[in-house]
């Protein structure tokens, strides 16, 4: 068994090619931002009924995945699973990168992004959004300290554990805040439930682990480094458990709603008659995002099937987008019940399912966020000693792996 060594990525055409690809996506997002500034949100598919669209789906996916990616690191430092230690640096870097990507999309999707500074000095402490500004910026700081503690020489294990614990608690608060953006909205039938916070935490475990594994497989493949099949398999099984946990919360959420008479109409809509949202729920979220990945991840031969792991992680990400689309857009599409017991109509879409047709530019902004996150992660790995060079099974302590 050798000591784990970390090396910057070498300058290869593949590394820079991927960077250029990411830069192209970021550039496309920049064009959308330019047009938004010039013409206003009229160029998007948003309207007065659906006010958070595709960019929010991307932004919240990235923010949720960011806190989940950090988990990979916490498992090693907080919960003492030493096998995860060698990938802790990557997990921290990816967590910060994903968060910055998500925040960039969120900010650029504001009606007046140039006024962001307002949110820094005119603060409303009753707003979860305002809390999240502190939680998100604090997260970057806390994870940066944790990453420094991981990388610097001479940091005592006690100090490292303290930094790791702080980051873990912070990330739980962060995801609670993100879930509560929806959970505390009393106005809308799809929200107004405290289960949103723990469900978002489970989603973060799942999406974050999937994003981590995708980046890990991609990075080790193009740089010809080793991703210990033992560790990969452990992470794959854990991803399967996380996917199951998300599905559990989704089932409890819907069963609770079905039990409440005032929410049964919403449930019959979203589960049976909601058109695109029903398809995305059953096809995207449940089948592609939950059932298929679990079949792959709990496959008895998963340890030899790198392709299964890659596919499963991809499916979890696709399912995650479907889930967030159903939650965010579907939750707004269902009509507000201002007059219970009445059928209503108006020129302002009262009583009808609200329509939303996202425009290409909105996807450009969203994919730009992912590309920005990958660029930051890539540059971090290129210039810092983040990626282990010799993460073979032999170098991951067998005694620890056996537990």
């Amino acid at each position, binding site marked *: 068994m050798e000591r784990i060594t970390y090396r910057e990525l070498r300058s290869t055409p593949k590394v820079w090619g991927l960077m250029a690809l990411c830069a192209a996506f970021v550039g496309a997002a920049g064009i959308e931002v330019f047009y938004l500034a010039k013409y206003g949100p009229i160029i998007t598919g948003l309207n007065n009924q659906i006010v958070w669209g595709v960019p929010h789906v991307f932004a919240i996916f990235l923010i949720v995945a960011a806190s989940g990616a950090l988990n990979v690191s916490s498992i090693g430092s907080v919960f003492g699973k030493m096998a995860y230690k060698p990938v802790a640096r990557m997990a921290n870097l990816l967590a910060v990168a994903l968060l910055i990507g998500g925040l960039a999309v969120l900010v650029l999707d504001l009606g007046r992004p140039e006024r962001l500074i307002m949110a820094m000095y005119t603060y*409303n402490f009753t707003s979860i959004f305002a809390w999240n500004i502190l939680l998100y910026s604090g997260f970057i700081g806390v994870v940066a300290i944790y990453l420094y503690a991981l990388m610097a020489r001479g940091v005592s294990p006690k100090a490292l554990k303290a930094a790791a614990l702080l980051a873990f608690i912070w990330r739980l608060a962060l995801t609670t805040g993100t879930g509560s953006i929806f959970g505390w909205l009393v106005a809308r039938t799809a929200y107004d439930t405290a289960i949103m916070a723990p469900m978002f935490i489970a989603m973060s475990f799942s999406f974050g682990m999937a994003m981590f594994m995708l980046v890990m497989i991609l990075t080790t493949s193009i740089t010809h480094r080793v991703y210990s099949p033992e560790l990969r398999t452990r992470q794959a099984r854990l991803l399967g458990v996380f996917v199951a946990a998300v599905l559990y919360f989704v089932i409890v959420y819907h069963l609770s709603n079905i039990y409440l008479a005032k929410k049964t109409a919403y449930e019959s809509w979203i589960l049976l008659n909601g058109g695109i949202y029903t398809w995305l729920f059953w096809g995207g979220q449940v089948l592609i995002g939950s059932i298929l990945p679990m079949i792959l991840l709990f496959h008895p031969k998963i340890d030899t099937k790198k392709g299964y792991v890659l596919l499963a992680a991809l499916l979890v990400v696709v399912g995650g987008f479907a889930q967030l689309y159903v939650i965010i857009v579907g939750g707004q599409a269902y009509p507000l019940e*201002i007059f219970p017991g009445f059928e*209503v*109509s108006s020129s302002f879409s009262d009583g009808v399912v609200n329509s939303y047709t996202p425009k290409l530019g909105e996807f450009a902004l969203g994919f730009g966020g992912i590309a920005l996150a990958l660029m930051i992660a890539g540059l971090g790995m290129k210039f810092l000693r983040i990626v282990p060079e010799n993460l073979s099974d032999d170098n991951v302590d067998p005694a620890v792996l056996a537990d």
Partner: protein
Amino acid sequence: MTNPSKKPKGAEISRRDILKSGAALATLTLAPGVTLMAFGGKASASEDMPADGLKPGARWGLLIDAGKCPEDCSACVAACSTEQGWENNGLDTDPQWIRKVTLKETATGRTNSLPVMCQHCENPPCVDVCPTGASFKREDGIVLVNRHTCIGCRYCMMACPFKARSFVAAPVTGQKSYSPRGVGTVEGCNLCVHKIDRGDGTTACVEACTATGNNAMMFGDLNDPQSEIAIAVATYASQELRADLGLGLGVRYQNI
């Protein structure tokens, strides 16, 4: 050197003196092209209704009688649009500060019609969620959006149970000096705060409704037991929309 904390003698003029002097006009230029104007009120402003509208302890509100609101009348909507300078051309991105809603009782088939606008909640969810405090409630219960600090996050639109707010999706022209609007910000009924503040004692929608002869809308101080609106709500049954949410609305309805 003059001590800035010490007022010169000549400045000892009461605010009421200024208001009574006639059309006192204060103009504050915030930025090129952006001007806030506050009109000093009429000299005839009564003692219990100061011309600046900031009546101590007031809770401005509306009482809407759905029984007197014909389905084919939208005078209140048109008046609001004209007064505040917003335009609805039928696009789903067009703002609607006030809208007519037609109701059909599911159990009985009885139909009804009424206007819906910002309900000026006592505990407004939009104010709770606004990250910058741009959504705020005045002492007299009027819920407003400060268009200069709104960052356009639309969280208030997610939180409002009444769809009372609109998002300005494109650059606007023809703004009223007393009702600034701006692309990328959120807006909604301001209870004609400029009219209240200059002592008109009514709103554009109520004026228009009264002019049609339907008299379905009434404006006034819900906290003043002598006011027409307070007497009406104390005498006849009225209700809040979504009373289950406990938001304490400033707008009440009769005969829904």
